[in-house]
């Protein structure tokens, strides 16, 4: 009916315009910097391009024919989402780092930028996706026919005399191609991100969901009364079918039944490896963090879109009564029950699903075609000015090609299969990439030959066991081959290889293809070795997450033999990506790098520039082709990559020098630990550095006590100490810098650096590169600097080398610290020894003095009839200033005295010895007490004044016949007499100054009668001034009381008792002052 046709065409056109608008709007927003695509919801919806019209129509068909197992095709991706955080994130990081443009890029890059591998992946992708695209074309044309009622196969256009009949299929294909080109191949972008395309795809995913859910809700709740209603009704109508459809049957009765595991496996690999999935998940990903949301939003999407599939299928079976055309139940049921609007909704949903898939798939595969099939051919020709145009048109041609190949497949095989099965053929194809991909990401040994063999064998198996048989019914393969195997060899029967019969074709293909694929991949990877390039890539790939932490500048072990200017690189790039793009890229790169007026960059920056050029070109032509282009360009310029002799003067192209580095550290550690002599260590270490690393000059500077850097060791062209005018002093600013920042300072090219700082003399001595490494232990201030220079190699001080030198400096710092500590300890020890020695000597002297003093005091008291005497002196220190003596004049006269020199030092003791000497002759002259004191005073006055000492003395004479005691006192403590019957003690006092104050003093003489039973106590102030803990003095009263309790004891016991009383009273072991006691008892 024409109405239906016109209406349908109109609505289709309007819908298409809407999509265009959205795409244009998204593109516009990106240009102005406020992208609407940069959010996780759009990202998730774009991943939902997985649900093509295969999901939309095919699932319903499968649900109606084989039952609920259709769900497994979506459960697989849902399960796979678990792994995205690790797997997908890793893939995205690697891809972003290397400007990857397609899955072929990734695989080819990992296996050493292999062009062959990339080409292989591309060809197989094209073949594998043919059924998929055919599927989409089939659904669109069928649904179009259904909804418009237009059933003719071709459209007739009449224009006057001409009548052209165009098969509607071709028209559709053309339209799809044009859409895809507009969305995806407007220009040769260098990042392959198409925000317009993504916005369109996301919108289409939304429409898909709304459409299918809408149809589902309509059927479930309007046509019937809910879920349970459908199930119950269906069960009543077709009970056997119910149990068949709603359970999973293990019986492989037809090619339509696929075991759950196979479906799971295929769908899990498909979600990652289908070119469109890879493109949308990895290449078009804007922000890694979107993955987090997508991980659960995408399964949710799948959940929602599949929720109503079963009801629709069952309802379709109920309404139509058969499984004919089951794929299109979603359309037919509304149509047949008289709801054309809902049917239109379904139609739009299916259209969206198909269009989205075709657009993304064709664009990404066309990119692969361009990079791996067309470019390798083009690269052989010199770049011309029209190359950018050629490239973009080749890309567009590729899109046409792919879609038309799909159409071609549709023509041949389209009507033989249910939709789902056509999709499954594609899934089986892309699963062949799985071993190479997973192995590439997680297995270090996976190598290129293995990947190529694996993929090839896998594909051959797929082709033979699945693809060919699918075309068998149309004469592409003789039926006899199918039944009996080629040339009659039944073991090679395509559907039952090697006798594995009884399996459905999908599991059969899956098993054999994986067997050969994985098997040959592993075998080849183990047997054969990887080459240099591959190993580099392996470190890049598998070490990629850890590499985040390494921020430092990356210098090359290779360099260009002839300098190339930036302008030349820019010209090369513009030939492929257009001038304005090239300019932009270069401007962004130059940024903060240092170039001189002619556009030259320092020599070792050139390799970075080369890498940048490769990376930029890779965005447009693929990594492998970009490498080839730049290499051929450079060889045209006459510049090659030379290998720089690395630090061990062996030619290496990779940075694997860990064993040599270990040896160096070991040797250095030997040198350092061999001796304690710091100078030897430093000299030997510099020797070692010069020999081992072929440096020319090396110095060690250390900080001395004033914090100035002094050259401690200098080894180089001459061994003499360096003069003031030496070129090294130009490096002073660097040394200061190193000292302040505690970081290594490197000049890899003195010519370049001399433009900022004056280095004339340095350059004049042909120094080409130098480094200043601080000698320090971690976390401490620097102890000095190691300065090394090379006259031959610039760019010598690469990251690894500096790391090595720094570790040597660290070891040296440790040695210096230890040696300094040892020195300090030695000094301390000698000081201590000397102090101890001195102390011992002094002690010994003091002990001698003590002995002498004791010998000067009377050892025993003299005996006189009728009296008992005793005396004792205990000094506070070794020697004291107290003195007492007894002189026996005759049988009945005895002199007693007690004296105290101020202080209790050696000086006091010496004075006391002098007193004793002076006293002896005096005594014999039978003077009175006061006369003796007077004489002593005048004789001692000079000495005492000079020594600034004083003496207190109490001198008494006792006559036992008369019982009279006459005495004189020179400021001494009053002796006490304890008399029986008297309550308190009698104090003896006489007037007199202490000795040593005035040269001439008159002393008073007194006397007293002593009676039997008297006890006389002489003491020095040590006794009376003994303080206890509370600060109370012993005091005269206490002495008296104590004496009263003891007066019956013998003299010596009285004295001992007083000493213990004082000890108890003070609570101390030693006395605070000398205490001398003399006791006279009258018996």
């Amino acid at each position, binding site marked *: 009916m024409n109405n239906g046709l016109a209406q349908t065409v109109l609505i289709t056109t309007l819908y298409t315009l809407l999509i265009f608008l959205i795409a244009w709007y998204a593109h516009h927003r990106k240009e102005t910097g406020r992208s609407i695509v940069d959010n996780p919801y759009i990202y998730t919806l774009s991943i939902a391009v997985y649900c093509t019209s295969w999901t939309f129509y095919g699932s319903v068909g499968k649900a109606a024919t084989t039952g609920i197992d259709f769900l497994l095709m979506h459960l697989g991706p849902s399960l796979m989402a*678990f792994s995205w955080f690790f797997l997908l994130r890793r893939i995205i990081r690697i891809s972003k780092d290397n400007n990857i443009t397609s899955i072929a890029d990734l695989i080819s890059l990992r296996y050493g930028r292999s062009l062959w591998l990339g080409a292989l992946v591309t060809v197989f992708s094209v073949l594998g996706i043919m059924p998929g695209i055919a599927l989409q074309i089939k659904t669109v044309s069928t649904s179009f026919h259904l909804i418009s009622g237009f059933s003719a196969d071709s459209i007739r256009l009449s224009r006057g005399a001409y009548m052209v009949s165009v098969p509607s299929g071709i028209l559709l294909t053309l339209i799809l191609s044009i859409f895809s080109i507009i969305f995806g191949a407007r220009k040769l972008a260098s990042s392959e991100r198409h925000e317009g395309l993504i916005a369109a795809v996301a919108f289409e995913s939304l429409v898909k969901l709304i459409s299918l859910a809408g149809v589902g809700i309509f059927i479930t709740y309007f046509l019937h009364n809910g879920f349970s209603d459908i199930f119950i009704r269906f069960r009543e109508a077709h009970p056997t079918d119910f149990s068949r459809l709603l359970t999973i049957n293990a019986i492989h009765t037809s090619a339509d039944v696929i075991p*759950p595991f196979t479906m799971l496996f295929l769908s899990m690999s498909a979600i990652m490896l289908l070119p469109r999935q890879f493109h949308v998940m990895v290449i078009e990903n804007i922000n890694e963090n979107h993955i*987090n949301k997508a991980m659960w939003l995408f399964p949710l999407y799948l959940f929602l879109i599949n929720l109503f599939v079963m009801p629709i299928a069952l309802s379709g079976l109920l309404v139509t009564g058969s499984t004919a055309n089951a794929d299109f139940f979603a359309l037919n049921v509304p149509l047949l029950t008289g709801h054309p609007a809902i049917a239109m909704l379904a139609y739009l949903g299916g259209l969206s699903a198909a269009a989205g898939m075709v657009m993304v798939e064709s664009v990404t595969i066309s990119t692969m075609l361009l990079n791996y099939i067309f470019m390798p051919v083009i690269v052989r020709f010199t770049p011309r000015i029209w190359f950018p145009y050629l490239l973009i048109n080749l890309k567009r041609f590729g899109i046409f090609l792919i879609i038309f190949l799909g159409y071609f497949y549709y023509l041949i095989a389209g009507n033989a299969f249910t939709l789902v099965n056509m999709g499954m053929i594609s899934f089986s194809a892309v699963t062949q990439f799985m071993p190479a991909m997973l192995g590439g990401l997680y297995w270090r040994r996976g190598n290129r030959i293995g990947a190529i063999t694996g993929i090839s064998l896998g594909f051959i198996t797929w082709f033979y066991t699945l693809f060919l048989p699918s075309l068998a019914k149309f004469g592409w393969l003789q039926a006899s081959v199918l039944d009996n195997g080629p040339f009659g060899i039944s073991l090679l029967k395509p559907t039952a290889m090697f006798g594995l019969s009884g399996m459905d074709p999908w599991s059969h293909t899956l098993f054999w293809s994986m067997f050969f694929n994985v098997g040959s991949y592993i075998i080849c990877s183990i047997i054969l070795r990887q080459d240099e390039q591959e190993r580099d890539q392996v470190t890049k790939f598998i070490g990629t997450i850890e590499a985040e932490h390494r921020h430092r500048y990356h210098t090359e072990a290779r360099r260009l033999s002839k300098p190339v200017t930036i302008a030349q690189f820019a010209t090369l790039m513009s030939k492929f990506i257009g001038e304005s793009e090239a300019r932009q890229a270069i401007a962004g790169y130059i940024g903060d790098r240092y170039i001189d007026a002619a556009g030259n960059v320092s020599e070792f920056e050139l390799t970075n520039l080369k890498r940048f050029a490769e990376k930029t070109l890779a965005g447009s032509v693929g990594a492998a082709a970009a490498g080839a282009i730049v290499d051929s360009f450079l060889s045209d310029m006459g510049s090659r990559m030379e290998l720089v002799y690395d630090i061990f003067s062996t030619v290496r192209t990779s940075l694997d020098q860990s064993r040599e580095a270990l040896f160096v550290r070991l040797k250095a550690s030997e040198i350092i630990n061999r001796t304690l002599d710091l100078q030897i260590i430093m000299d030997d270490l510099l020797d070692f550095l010069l020999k081992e690393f072929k440096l020319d000059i090396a110095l060690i500077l250390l900080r001395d006590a004033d914090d100035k850097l002094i050259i401690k060791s200098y080894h180089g062209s001459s061994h003499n100490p360096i003069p003031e005018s030496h070129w090294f002093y130009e490096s002073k600013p660097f040394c200061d810098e190193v000292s302040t920042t505690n970081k290594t300072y490197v000049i890899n090219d003195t010519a370049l650096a001399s433009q900022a700082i004056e280095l004339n003399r340095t350059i004049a001595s042909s120094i080409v590169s130098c480094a200043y490494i601080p000698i320090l232990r971690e976390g401490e201030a620097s102890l000095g600097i190691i300065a090394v220079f090379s006259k031959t190699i610039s760019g010598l001080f690469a990251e690894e080398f500096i790391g090595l030198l720094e570790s040597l400096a660290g070891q040296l710092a440790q040695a210096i610290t230890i040696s300094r500590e040892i020195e300090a300890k030695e000094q301390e020890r000698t000081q201590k020894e000397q102090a101890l020695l001195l102390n011992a000597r002094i002690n010994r002297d003091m002990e001698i003095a003590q002995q002498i003093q004791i010998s000067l005091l009377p050892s025993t008291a003299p005996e006189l009839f009728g009296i008992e005497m005793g005396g004792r002196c205990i000094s506070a220190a070794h020697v004291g200033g107290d003195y007492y003596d007894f002189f026996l004049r005759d049988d009945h006269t005895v002199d007693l005295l007690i004296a105290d020199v101020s202080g209790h030092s050696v000086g006091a003791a010496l004075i006391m010895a002098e007193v004793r000497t002076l006293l002896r002759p005096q005594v014999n002259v039978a003077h009175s007490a006061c006369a003796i004191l007077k004489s002593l005073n005048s004789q001692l006055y000079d000495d005492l004044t000079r020594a600034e000492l004083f003496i207190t003395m109490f001198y008494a004479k006792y006559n036992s016949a008369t019982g009279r005691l006459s005495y004189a006192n020179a400021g001494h403590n009053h002796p006490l007499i304890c008399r029986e019957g008297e309550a308190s003690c009698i104090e003896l006092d006489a007037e007199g100054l202490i000795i040593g104050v005035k040269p001439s003093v008159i002393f008073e003489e007194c006397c007293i009668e002593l009676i039997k039973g008297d006890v006389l106590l002489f003491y020095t102030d040590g006794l009376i001034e003994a303080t206890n803990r509370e600060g109370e003095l012993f005091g005269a009263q206490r002495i008296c009381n104590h004496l009263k309790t003891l007066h019956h004891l013998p003299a010596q016991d009285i004295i001992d008792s007083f000493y213990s009383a004082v000890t108890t009273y003070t609570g101390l072991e030693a006395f605070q002052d000398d205490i001398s006691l003399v006791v006279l008892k009258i018996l």
Partner: protein
Amino acid sequence: MLKQLRLKLLNRLQLRESWIIFFIFGIILLNFPFLHIFNKSDTLFGIPLLFTYFFVGWGISIFIIYLFTLAIENSGTKQMERRQP
């Protein structure tokens, strides 16, 4: 209390191992032994058993993934806090 429980749960989920465990668990749940258990044509309130198994299980697994993403964000913020001195 709920917040503590939540944090504990999230901490547990951060282990890389727990991801793998859930992944393998999912594969097991979608294969023959478990499918066979539910592979009967009984109905639960009129809805077939297998149908319920799939969809309820699916919903639960989506929820678990959601918890995992929360755990990731949790550890992400923790790492940010740790980096700032």
